[in-house]
């Protein structure tokens, strides 16, 4: 009975009150004091100034806020900070600082961006896919990349960059 109460109390505390969170982002430790329900998106952008992760919709419809959590693509607007501890988080700033990651190199070779705002999310969507499957089929690529919106309409170049990134990743 006592155990239950303590557990209940701690969950109650976690949900409703400001707490301090240790986050492992791009292999660095960060600390953030925030309400437990604060989306990781805003922690990254406004608390930690990792602004490469973009706010596009906040409701899981555009993919601009993609990050990697233990290597898998996750929409950071959909993850609350309280569930982010103990996970390796990679943002665009950590994919590689110098742009040498195969996906970034492919995007550079194909000169993809126009405004560039959605591109970190585009690149992390593909990276998450390639982390699971080094040779995805066109259908698998379509399924992932079609969830990523680009208003400038750089899809033609994204498609070329996807193909090139797969080549580079398998070299």
């Amino acid at each position: 009975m006592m155990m239950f109460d303590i557990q209940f109390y701690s969950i109650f505390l976690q949900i409703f009150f400001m707490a301090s969170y240790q986050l492992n982002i791009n292999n660095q430790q960060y600390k953030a004091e925030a309400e437990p329900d604060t989306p990781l998106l805003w922690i990254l952008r406004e608390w930690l100034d990792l602004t490469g992760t973009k706010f596009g919709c906040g409701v899981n419809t555009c993919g601009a806020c993609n990050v990697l959590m233990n290597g898998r693509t996750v929409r950071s607007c959909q993850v609350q900070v309280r569930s982010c501890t103990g996970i390796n988080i990679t943002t665009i700033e950590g994919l590689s600082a110098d742009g040498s990651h195969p996906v970034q190199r492919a995007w550079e070779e194909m000169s993809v961006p126009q405004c560039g705002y959605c591109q970190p999310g585009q690149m992390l969507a593909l990276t998450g896919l390639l982390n699971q499957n080094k040779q995805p089929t066109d259908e698998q690529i379509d399924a992932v990349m079609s969830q990523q919106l680009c208003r400038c309409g750089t899809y033609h170049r994204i498609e070329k960059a996807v193909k090139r990134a797969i080549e580079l990743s398998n070299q």
Partner: protein
Amino acid sequence: MQKIKISRKEFITSTSFAGSGLMLGFLLPGIKAFAQTTNEPCEFFKPNAFLKIDTKGSITIYVARQEMGQGVNTSLPMIVADEMDADWRKVKTEIAPFGSLPEGSHDTGGSQSVLTDFTSLRKAGAVAKTMLIAAAAKLWNTTPDKCAADAGEVVNTVNMQRIAYGDLVCEAAKLEVPKEVTLKSPKDFKLIGKEQRKNNLKDILTGKTKYGIDLKIPGMLYASVERCLVPGGTLVSVDDSEAMKLPGVVKVVTYKGTGAPMHVRDGVAVVAKNIWTAMKARKLLKIKWDEGTKNKQNTTALFQQMVARSQQKPTIEKFKKGDISKFATTPSNSIAAVYKAPFLAHATMEPINFIASVKDGVCEVWGGLQLPDWTVNELVKQCGLKKENIKVNLALMGGGFGRRLHFEFAIEAVKISQLVNAPVKLINNRTDDIRFDNFRPANVHRLQASWDAKGTLQTWYHHVLSTSIAVMTDGPDTKNMAENLGGADSDFYYDVPNVTTGYSHVDFNINRGWLRSVEICMNSFPIECFIDEVARKLKKDPLAYRLSLLDGRPMFMTDEGPGAMKQYPQRIANVLKLAAEKIGYSKPRKKNHFIGVATHSFIFAKSYAAHAIEIEMLGPKKFRIVKVVGAIDCGIVVNPDGLRNQMEGGIAFALQQALKGEITVVNSRVVQDGFNGFELLRYSEMPPVEIYTIESEEEPGGVGEVGLPTVAPALCNALAAAGARSRTLPIRNEGFEWV
């Protein structure tokens, strides 16, 4: 009928381009005759407001036009660097500080940047080069005519001695700035015409690029704003007791809206220490709005009203040639058709946001603004500020497309900052961003054409109806309301002896604004579909028929006087021929494959583009786009890579509008509230595209908007070839499906 001729370009010009973009930095007041009079210690050489060279030879080029993805932060520096024979690898760019150039220099819209600035930027580069050469000549005890510039160095052409620009900085800075400079011959261009990747490409790919939404200033608070869903609605009361209970909420403030030009709505702003708290607390507000009397309008009724109105005489006659009434029109020698297109949102990926800090009447703002001078002038009027007390910091935009030609968000942010006496970053969520956009007007067109016994076109009538933008921005008495350019004006390019075009505004309570290609898109769709309908009715090939009305037709001036523009029917024909050739128009087609074409002139951007689209029909109204070919003639091409990117992206932007893009209104409320309602084109929907360019030595034209207008008509003409014409956009509303 009133007779008024004012184009969008002139409108933008008259309202905001107070200064001339062609003025040169070195001719401006405040710029000294000598580049730098005191030069101890010597650090850099800055002959004008556009560029700076330091002693290491690193060149900074200041870009006044705003970068929003269209590539000006690469193309404009290329123009300067080419003329100064700079080493492109040593060039970096910065946003030219607001206030460092004459009013209007930062204005960015209408695909005008390259074509407006081409000569002035070349002169700015030539001034630097001339002074560097003079400095080298002085150093070598020779004359400038014995020196030449080459890739960031000056060369002594007699003894081939070389010296880097960086080593000439201190000498050059002591020299008088020349009043006259000689420009290169275009054949000597080294950078212009060669592919360059975006200047900030690496920063974009590593997440280092800072857009307006990424900026932070000390002590900054965050605002999330509740606005009345009905335009013109007023705030009755707000109960913020629940919202104020959330830890981190600083204040809830209210402010009154404004009228023209920007129609800021009454607002209730939750100001908090972080954006998440502001967004959460906003949901706890209990607000009563007075929606006013215009709260029952809907777009279905608007279109019915517009179609009914289209049968009457236009309010404004725009263009008249010959006399259409003198030719007898019967059902057998004529056709008529009505076309419709909806309101459209900008939906930039970066949601609207803006930072303002007002303290003791001193105001500083940060963010993307396509018309910053007009913004400042309105901040003076709407927020009780003095012009000299407003400092603007321009920021990169995550997409523009005309959204930030409007600046209601800047007025809102300043008002909120004034009320909380602290710096505030206003962020719209995606729902706000869509609902409170300034929409591309809904439009309806009635066209009629007739021909003689030989099948030669004799009359052309075009009545354009829309919910005018100018009525929003200038008020109901505006003289600029017609939106007819793109062929429904004196720029009409087909050779027809009797032509009448006109315009009627139909009022509707929703905010309207300029969206990429605005009126040119609105008018190209019906014109390029209707000419196709005429051809088909006359049993002629639509491509050959168009060319018969264009090929060999000489250049003509659209008007008399200073507003006149050149129209080149031949260039319109040439891009059409190129697109048709590259898609294999004259080759045998596979079963169920059909090709549609469309062409146009983007008259005030001095560019011409055509599209040819091949589709495969999979059912009566089901199709797949096999390929889209775009052809453009924009004169001298500055950056071919940037040009192609704009044209490719333009296809995606225009396909979204052709297939599914639409804003609808019910009870004066925008129905769409995000990307689920206002759907963008997706990766899997992007067809194969090819872009071809006409080689030209004509003066450079703009490219940002030119790739859109002919996409929707080319698609609809392909569908018509298959027997399934749609005269309504988006075609999804007509039951079309695509895979």
